[in-house]
């Protein structure tokens, strides 16, 4: 059996940044396993710009951003295998993978970093009634067809869901000469970044209809029309509000689901809110030595934050390899999201293992204006930051200081909530 100190499952932005950080932290034996035929993951099909503003202070395209990390992987001679599918991860960190040249093989890993990314919610999972013709694509599949394969999925387009990929594809299809007739969003607010709504819809005069959903798909062989309707507060379509659009294409951008089938088979505990692993301050899952970062952990809106998170996962995996499993007899501090905050990453915190500063990321469940992000150490409010606007489509964060935490030796729970005053 092969052995590596760190095996990274996935060669997208998370896997690449984790690998580079682990090498910088001194781990020599690293292997990245990537299922596609090149490194870079979904960034390769994101040919628009806007990546890297936080990390590199410049605006890069997706492939350019990915290449910054790929180059480091090449320069550092970090090993990777392409066209390689990981079939199984065991709780004792034996990774089973397969490709054309090596066949099926096992690797004993000192530490594993999960970086598998996410997938799009398909039409079937949305329970949209109607026919099942060609011409219905998840936005990411359409993006791949257009930007990588060079084919147009259609000419007249309706988009359901205002996730970022859907917004980006509204612009992309328009630039390719297609007519995007409408973007319908089930929720009363968009799931995408504000800047994408402005730059991808408003600038092209594409209407965004909030609180609308698709109620019928016509066309036996290829989509011929889509009917949308307004939904009430119960999310059910309101009869009489139907609007029919003739079109040949329906794109879906209705949410991303972390791809945790491998994590599940390994026995990693998942958070039902994020569908990603439950992790501690080191981004370590419920299985010691198995770390997670990027969209497999929770869906991000900016790749810069993925890279930052993955760097931590890489460093911590490297530390785990060097120092081994550190059992603490102290009960870790629980992080709880409530009253407007939906989840936190991480979920627990051990002050002995944390860095001087710890970024806690979370999302809100609705749009909040002129509200406060409050952090409670048990019952005491220790942070109270005003925010002009918070929306589910934009990830939020608070930073915890180790110094501050040391003043609370008996702290059991840190609670994040959104308060009006």
């Amino acid at each position, binding site marked *: 059996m092969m052995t590596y100190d760190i095996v990274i499952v996935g060669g997208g932005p998370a896997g690449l940044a984790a690998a580079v950080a682990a090498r910088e932290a001194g781990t020599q034996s690293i292997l990245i396993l990537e299922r596609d035929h090149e490194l870079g993951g979904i960034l390769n099909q994101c040919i628009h710009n806007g990546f890297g503003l936080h990390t590199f202070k410049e605006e890069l395209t997706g492939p350019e951003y990915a290449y910054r990390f790929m180059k480091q992987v090449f320069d550092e001679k970090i090993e990777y295998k392409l066209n390689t599918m990981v079939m199984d991860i065991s709780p004792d960190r034996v990774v089973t993978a397969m490709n*054309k040249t090596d066949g099926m093989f096992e690797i004993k890993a000192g530490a594993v970093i999960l970086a598998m990314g996410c997938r*799009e919610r*398909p039409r079937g999972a949305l329970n949209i009634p*109607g026919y099942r013709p*060609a011409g219905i694509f998840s936005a990411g599949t359409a993006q791949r067809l257009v930007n990588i394969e060079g084919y*147009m999925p259609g000419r007249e387009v309706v988009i359901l869901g205002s996730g970022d990929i859907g917004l980006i594809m509204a612009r992309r299809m328009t630039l390719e000469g297609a007519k995007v007739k409408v973007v319908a969003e089930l929720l009363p607010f968009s799931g995408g970044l504000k800047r994408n709504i402005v730059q991808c819809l408003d600038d092209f005069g594409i209407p965004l209809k909030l609180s609308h959903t698709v109620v019928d798909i016509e066309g036996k062989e290829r989509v011929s029309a889509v009917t949308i309707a307004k939904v009430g507060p119960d999310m059910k379509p309101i009869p009489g509000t139907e609007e029919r659009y003739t079109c040949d294409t329906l794109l879906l951008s209705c949410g991303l689901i972390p791809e945790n*089938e491998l994590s599940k088979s390994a026995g990693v505990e998942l958070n039902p809110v994020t569908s990603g692993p439950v992790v501690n301050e080191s981004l370590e899952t419920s299985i010691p030595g198995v770390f997670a970062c990027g969209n497999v952990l929770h869906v991000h809106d900016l790749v810069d934050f993925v890279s930052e998170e993955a760097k931590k996962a890489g460093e911590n995996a490297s530390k785990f390899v060097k120092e081994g499993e550190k059992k603490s007899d102290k009960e870790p501090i629980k992080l709880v999201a409530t009253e407007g905050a939906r989840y936190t990453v991480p979920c627990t915190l051990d002050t002995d293992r944390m860095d001087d500063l710890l970024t806690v990321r979370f999302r809100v469940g609705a749009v909040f204006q002129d509200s406060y992000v409050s952090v409670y150490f048990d019952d005491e409010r220790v942070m109270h930051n005003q925010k002009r606007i918070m929306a589910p489509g934009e990830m939020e964060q608070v930073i915890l200081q180790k110094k501050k935490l040391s003043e609370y030796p008996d702290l059991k729970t840190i609670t994040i909530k959104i308060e009006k005053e």
Partner: protein
Amino acid sequence: MTYDCIIIGAGVSGSATARELSKYDLNVCVLEKGEDVCSGTSKANSAIVHAGFDAAEGSLMAKLNVEGNEMMGQLAEDLDIPFERNGSLVVCIHEEEKGGLQELYDRGIANGVKELRLLDKEELHKMEPNLADEACAALYAPTGGIICPFMLNIAMAENAAMNGVDFFFNTEAETLKRDEDGIWHIRTNNGEYKTKYVVNAAGIYSDVFHNMVADKKIHITPRRGDYCLLDKEVGNLVSKTIFPQPTKLGKGVLVSPTIHGNLIVGPTAIDIEDKEATATTAAGINDLIEKAGMHVKNLPVARKVITSFAGLRAHEDNHEFVIGEVKEAPGFIDCAGIESPGLTSSPAIGRMVAGIVCDLAKPAKKANWNGKRKGILNPSNMSVEERNELIKKEPAYGQIICRCESISEGEILDAIRRPLGARSLDGVKRRTRAGMGRCQAGFCSPRVMEIINRELGIPIEKITKSGGKSVIAPERTKAGKGGEA
């Protein structure tokens, strides 16, 4: 050329008949309006092998159901397709309706169903811990089973083709008439076909062809059934096929594991007029969610559904299979009104229809008929050593294309290259399951298109989901055309 026999329709009935007829020295062909076998009613049903206690005593439906059920084990083995007798339960949730189970039991015994047993509440809940608390008794039929309808249909057709039957796809029979020499002329969109005998296995359209030649008309109502397919994560919520007690409209909404490990919930039963209206409706899906939960608890239909679909049952007014030669149209043999339990009955239907043709044609048996067919390899059933041996010989088996169902390039190539091979995304999907998993082809469809393009030389812009106008990506982008991006 004049065929000895032409079968209209390459669904399960037509394909089963074709396979049976391929045992004889006959020139047989199948005309199919779809681009592939299994394009109509056969592709969208419960994927169940019924035990046979539902159909009326003494009916042809009852007889062929029980016979088909008995034949299925050997057939699945010969055709190398997965089949499992997981057993079925008709579950009673109202004390006062327990009597209905006895009635079903008696009918089952009269129909010749073996091993039937009535279960009390305790035994029932022990067998299926996730049944609703109200479940108070059940009829247990151990001979009930689950099968993949695509694979059964495809395998029977493939085996028929291996034994010399011609299949013509995208060929729609339009009209037919018999000339003075007793030869049938079938006009299609692809020219005229001539034959001595015609088998009308046109599914939902079987009344149309029957009524062209028969004095006594029949009427087929498309009875729509909506279904939800759930993620494999909940595939073992129940181990047996769970039926409610039947009503006038049918066997009701069942909950069952599928042979591939998903959970299926359905069907509704909605009579419609349009023979092509396979659209699902919100009302239908909501109805399923409500009804399925009456018999099985903790059923996460809305949360765990990966796809929903609808099929049309060919419901004949008398709710009976119509099989036999039409007296006033010698050589025209009906195989009409094949609704549930049509899939189960198909091996017996094929045998019966072929028997009728043979009684008329009196052909000799072929000496070299081969009733065995090798299915597409399923590497996930292999040991690591076997798998590595295979990958060394055929590296394509080491390349996973569909990540959700773990389907390799090798399996997809086999599906395209074998007799009656796949030519579309759905063709690949039904043969290999690539694209049938939880991401519903989001990741693998561009890669499958690439393979179809490479293997069959079909330009990407022409590759379809399921034939006809169902093209996926009809034109190139500006950059793809070589122009300015």
